[in-house]
């Protein structure tokens, strides 16, 4: 009954059931539109709103102020209010600029990112195209097209700040594509597939089977990718295209209203997309869901309700992990100062690029010589049995996985402890300010 | 790789590491440190070799004799060609081969090297080439150890050449001395002559067999298969291997041993090699490298034909006789020792030739100990005597250097075969087997001359005792003949400590119960036989069958064997064996006593008695003949060198008159021809070229007109033509279709 491999996407099945007859064309088109309208549009809007709210909240807390807190509970509806304001704002178009291109630019910037969502794996079935065998690469392609919108925007504004911003963006984007792609290749090489869903399903099994812990090279590639993705997304500290202290607002200078908002939707969606890639490739997007999913798929008695539940759970885990990455991106934005453009390019060409090359080579050799141990402890193998552990000569691979896992967990714990301590500290400082101790002379 | 082989491999590589380190940093390390680095390296090797021996002895006991040999061939040069009858594997291999013999040799080399290193730290202390010396020593240790663990003849050859190189470098260590650099060159060249023979033998072997791994070679060319098949050996998959080819091959390989072990025709380099520093003489030219020739013969023993063995034996007996006689009269301390070394090597080679495999190798080991001791002792003396080597300047040194004198004396006792010293066991074994060989020849009705192979060694045993005693007496006994030397003489701890160790070894080296060298060697025979039998079960392996048993008949330790012997009827060879031991006991028993006694009597008062004897003319003549080393150098100089130089002069003359004349003639002819061609060029060719140039210019002016330099015009024209062409084609096609 649940022959998922034969059937189409989850959405199709959701609409048309699991029967063998295929829907007609008109229905198909309508269905596609409905999926986009019902699922992706709201998703993107909500995502953008939550991200904007989150960013402002993060910024506020990092600067020791509350952030948005008036509109709605915790200021949650602040984004909605902002949106309303944007819609109502006058839509200005510069007189001397290329008016047609000026109008076109936000859509050019937004559309590719939106298309990239097609391949994002929300769940084992919960993705628009399950069988996209070069899905990861397609996402990358879409992200690389996005920059064209920024360039058009900058040029058509007929404004020197905008043009500078666009040039910087072009420069930065073209350069950072390379380490981005290289570091992704390292992860892909470890996963052995470009299919985003497959690579997610393969990672399930425990903390040590996460993609990032597969080998030291993937572990480093994770960070290379993170830095490169920040730059490719023109996120701080690499936000030179819109650096407000130098270029007013860069390519955004002449924009206002809804067009301006579109750029922001594009940016936050792109953040989600790169975060999603990171989660899918490195951070085990589905947790243990993959294991149960495989069991349910193989079980002839399995019920589709179980599949729906699993997919929803997977989506929750995935969005949570991508959200964590986004949170780190925000955190960095409000922490690090902005480098000069030559420093940015130096980091790309002389640091990240060689690192990427070395990691690629290292991972290739690692793949050749060190067997990988996947699977779930106590299910696929008994971790307490030495013979079982050593089966297939995986001791080295497993040992490295575990060691890297400890390093990773240690880092996260350290950060959490550090942040927690600072938070407590801040509270005590606040308290001290509120009730100053008596000065004893 | 099994543990012993791995340990030995590491032990081999340690000196190489030390060599590299010393090459790079030796000069910076300076005087004491460089030596200690090299010593540490060889000490590590020694420790590893002991570990290897322990792990070897602790191996599986099911073979009775200890272990299975470890054979680790390493494919090196693929030579899968089609020439030759057939190639078996098509690889020229390197590799390791570890059996009991390897273990013993390896430990011995490591131990002697270690002691020589320690000694050298003292001996070379004031030399400015100190780091370089230890660099070479490390390289030598690596090479020698590599040779000992070598599992294929190819590896043996490679390291063979390496030790030759080290020998060259170390003989010429004081290259600013003309005699030293001459000696180095001489050693190198003479060795090359032998090595050519080795290479020829190796070539014959590889050509026929396509394999150089020791067990494979043994199995394929097992000499026992020759018995009853006079035309040769049939090797599976290869065809007939004729007796002549086998003998040529065996003698060729033996030529290498002749060169390296300085046997009779090529012995001239070894005495000259004494120009090198004395520790080098002890290590290379007494204990290890020169013994490598014997080692090689031991390794190829199973494939030597009777003819080849006879050659070996004759070379050996010639050398031992000749060298001992020359040693009688030399006055340079190191020269005496060098000729004594030659003589002892002759014993070993003779042993190999007459089938005393165990005896030869046994003597190699014991000889290494006492000869290293003798050389180190002489080194101590020379060091004490301001690098004075002539015994005429010594005398009475025992008062100044008692430890050295005692150690040297022990070594003398050992080499003379005094009972219960190490040389006694090994030398007697060889001579017993020589007697057995003679007896066997008599029984088989062959010529009585075979007995010479027994008689000469026995006589030389007496001579040996005499000249070694002479050496000791002249050096240590009597009155000091040079007060200056005597005053200066002293001893140093770092130099007599190795002597002491070696002295102990010289005493105990021969006992079965202590080092059990003989046991190891017997085990080597058994286990190699069993190993080849296991790898090639198709035929019975009898490569070592022509070797005599090492134990005296009737003295067998196991009572069961004795019972068997009692009831059994003796075969011809058993009877010969028994007789050999018998005649040996009869003849050699008094050699140490007689020789030493005569030596003491004669040299009690220094040169006094000798000088009296020299007054008789025949004695003087013989003395001069022997003192000039039987005029071998002059002979070689007069024959080979003169021929070479003459040929070279002839070539030069031919070059000067014939070749140069032709060249000059050709030059003249070319000049005349070219002046003719010049005329032709000026009028015919130039005219044509100028005409073409003018024509080209005119054409160019015409062609440059449409070339506007505008790229778009070009593209337009090209595309226009294409468009017109396509339009034409379409029109034609449509027209024909319609």
């Amino acid at each position: 009954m649940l022959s998922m491999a034969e059937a189409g996407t989850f959405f199709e099945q959701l609409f048309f059931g699991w029967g063998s007859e295929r829907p007609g064309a008109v229905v198909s088109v309508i269905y596609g539109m409905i999926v986009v309208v019902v699922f992706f549009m709201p998703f993107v809007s909500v995502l953008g709103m939550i991200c904007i709210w989150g960013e402002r909240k993060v910024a506020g807390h990092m600067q020791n102020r509350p952030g948005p807190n008036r509109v709605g509970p915790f200021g949650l509806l602040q984004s909605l209010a902002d949106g309303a304001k944007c819609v109502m704002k006058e839509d200005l178009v510069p007189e001397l600029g290329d008016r047609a291109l000026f109008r076109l630019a936000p859509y050019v910037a937004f559309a590719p990112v939106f298309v990239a969502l097609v391949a994002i794996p929300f769940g084992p079935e919960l993705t628009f195209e399950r069988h996209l065998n070069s899905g990861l690469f397609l996402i990358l392609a879409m992200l690389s097209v996005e920059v064209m919108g920024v360039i058009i925007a900058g040029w058509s504004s007929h404004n020197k700040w905008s043009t500078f911003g666009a040039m910087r963006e072009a420069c930065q984007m073209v350069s950072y594509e390379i380490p981005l792609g290289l570091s992704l290749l390292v992860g892909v090489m470890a996963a052995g597939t470009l299919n985003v869903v497959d690579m997610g399903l393969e990672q399930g099994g425990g903390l040590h089977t996460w993609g990032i812990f597969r080998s030291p090279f993937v572990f480093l590639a994770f960070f290379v990718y993170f830095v490169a993705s920040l730059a490719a997304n023109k996120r701080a500290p690499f936000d030179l295209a819109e650096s407000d202290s130098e270029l007013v607002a860069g390519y955004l200078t002449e924009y206002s209203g809804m067009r301006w908002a579109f750029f922001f939707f594009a940016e936050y969606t792109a953040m989600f997309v790169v975060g999603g890639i990171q989660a899918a490739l490195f951070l085990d997007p589905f947790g243990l869901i993959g294991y149960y999913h495989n069991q349910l798929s193989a079980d002839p008695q399995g019920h589709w309700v179980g599949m729906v539940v699993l997919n929803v759970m997977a989506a929750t885990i995935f969005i949570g992990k991508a959200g964590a990455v986004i949170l780190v991106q925000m955190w960095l934005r409000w922490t690090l100062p902005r480098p000069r453009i030559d420093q940015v390019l130096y980091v790309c060409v002389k640091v990240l690029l060689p690192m990427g090359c070395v990691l690629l080579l290292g991972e290739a050799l690692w793949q050749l010589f060190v067997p990988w141990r996947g699977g779930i402890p106590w299910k696929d193998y008994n971790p307490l049995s030495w013979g079982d552990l050593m089966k297939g000569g995986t001791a080295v691979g497993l040992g490295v996985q575990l060691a890297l896992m400890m390093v990773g967990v240690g880092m996260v714990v350290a950060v959490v402890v550090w942040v927690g301590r600072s938070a407590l500290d801040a509270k005590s400082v606040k308290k001290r300010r509120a009730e100053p101790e008596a000065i004893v002379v | 790789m099994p543990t012993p082989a791995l340990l030995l491999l590491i032990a081999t590589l340690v000196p190489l590491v030390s060599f590299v380190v010393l090459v790079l940093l030796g000069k910076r390390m300076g005087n004491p440190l460089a030596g200690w680095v090299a010593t540490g390296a060889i000490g590590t090797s020694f420790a590893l070799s002991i570990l290897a021996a322990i792990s070897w002895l602790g191996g599986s006991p099911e073979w009775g004799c200890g272990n299975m040999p470890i054979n680790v061939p390493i494919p090196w040069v693929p030579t899968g060609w089609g020439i030759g009858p057939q190639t078996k594997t098509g690889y020229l291999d390197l590799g390791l081969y570890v059996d009991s013999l390897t273990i013993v040799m390896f430990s011995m080399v490591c131990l002697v090297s270690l002691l020589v290193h320690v000694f050298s730290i003292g001996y070379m202390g004031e030399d400015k080439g100190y780091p370089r010396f230890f660099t070479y020593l490390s390289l030598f240790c690596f090479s020698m150890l590599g040779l000992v663990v070598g599992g294929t003849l190819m590896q043996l050859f490679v390291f063979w050449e390496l030790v030759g190189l080290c020998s060259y470098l170390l003989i010429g260590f004081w290259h600013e001395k003309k005699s030293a650099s001459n000696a180095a060159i001489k050693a190198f060249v003479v060795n090359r002559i032998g090595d050519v023979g080795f290479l020829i033998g190796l070539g014959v072997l590889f050509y026929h067999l396509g394999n150089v791994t020791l067990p494979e070679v043994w199995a394929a060319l097992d000499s026992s298969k020759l018995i009853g098949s006079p035309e040769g050996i049939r090797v599976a998959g290869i065809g007939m291997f004729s007796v002549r080819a086998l003998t040529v091959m065996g003698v060729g390989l033996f030529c290498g041993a002749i060169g390296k072990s300085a046997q009779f025709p090529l012995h001239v380099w070894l005495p000259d090699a004494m120009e090198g520093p004395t520790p080098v003489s002890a290590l290379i030219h007494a204990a290890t490298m020169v013994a490598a020739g014997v080692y090689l013969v031991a390794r190829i023993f199973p494939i030597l034909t009777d003819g080849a063995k006879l050659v070996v034996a004759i070379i050996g007996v010639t050398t031992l006789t000749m060298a001992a006689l020359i040693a009688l009269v030399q006055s340079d301390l190191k020269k005496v020792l060098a000729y004594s070394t030659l003589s002892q090597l002759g014993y070993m080679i003779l042993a190999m030739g007459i089938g005393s495999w165990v005896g030869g190798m046994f003597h190699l080991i014991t000889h290494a100990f006492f000869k290293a001791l003798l050389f180190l002792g002489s080194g101590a003396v020379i060091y004490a005597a301001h690098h004075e080597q002539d015994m005429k300047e010594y005398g009475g040194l025992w008062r100044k250097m008692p430890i050295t004198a005692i150690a040297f004396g022990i070594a003398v006792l050992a080499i003379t075969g005094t009972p219960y010293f190490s040389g006694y066991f090994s030398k007697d074994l060889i001579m017993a087997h020589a007697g057995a060989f003679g007896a066997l020849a008599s029984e088989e009705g062959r010529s009585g001359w075979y007995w010479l192979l027994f008689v000469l060694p026995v006589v030389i045993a007496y001579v040996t005792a005499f000249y070694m005693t002479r050496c000791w007496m002249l050096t240590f006994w009597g009155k000091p003949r040079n007060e200056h030397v005597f005053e200066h003489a002293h001893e140093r701890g770092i130099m007599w400590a190795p002597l002491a160790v070696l002295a102990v070894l010289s005493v105990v080296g021969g006992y079965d119960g202590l080092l059990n060298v003989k046991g190891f060697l017997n085990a080597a025979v058994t286990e190699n036989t069993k190993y080849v039998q296991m790898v090639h079960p198709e035929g019975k392996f009898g490569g070592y069958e022509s070797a005599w048993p090492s134990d005296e008949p009737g003295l067998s330790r196991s009572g069961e064997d004795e019972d068997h012997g009692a009831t059994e009827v003796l075969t011809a060879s058993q009877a010969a064996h028994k007789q050999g031991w018998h005649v040996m006991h009869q003849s050699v028993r008094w050699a140490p006593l007689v020789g030493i006694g005569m030596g003491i009597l004669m040299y009690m008062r220094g040169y006094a008695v000798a000088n009296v004897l020299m007054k008789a003319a025949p004695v003087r003549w013989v003395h001069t003949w022997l003192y000039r080393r039987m005029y071998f150098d002059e002979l070689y100089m007069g024959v080979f060198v003169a021929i070479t130089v003459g040929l070279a002069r002839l070539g030069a003359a031919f070059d000067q008159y014939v070749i140069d004349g032709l060249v000059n003639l050709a030059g003249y002819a070319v000049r005349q021809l070219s002046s003719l061609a010049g005329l032709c060029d000026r009028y015919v060719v130039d005219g044509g070229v100028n005409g073409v140039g003018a024509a080209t210019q005119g054409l160019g002016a015409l062609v440059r007109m449409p070339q506007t330099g505008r790229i778009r015009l070009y593209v337009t024209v090209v595309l226009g033509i294409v468009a017109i062409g396509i339009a034409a084609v379409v029109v034609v096609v449509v027209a024909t279709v319609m």
Partner: protein
Amino acid sequence: MVMGVMEIGLAHYLVLGAVLLVCGLVTILTKRNAIGILIGVELVLNAANINLVAFNRYSHGVSEGGGVALAGQVFAIFVIVLAAAEAAVALSIFLNFYNNFTSVDVEKAKELRG
């Protein structure tokens, strides 16, 4: 031949390729801006690529290993890569040209006139 309007066959792709080719050629012929010409060249290359891929996909070729033949796609990738290389070199040449003539008008580049 069964090739209706609604059934896409090889010829459709080839016609599209022809259209792109001609557009590229016209671009090359009419533009005086060197970069414009470069853009035209890219169009021409794309037209070629469409043909390569379409032939590859419609020819149902089977490679030696038994899988689907990939020659067309592989060479399309090569074309794309070479186009990138060509663009890089061309642009650096244009920059030099611009440096010498302060313009990228190809009409000014006629120093090679014979």
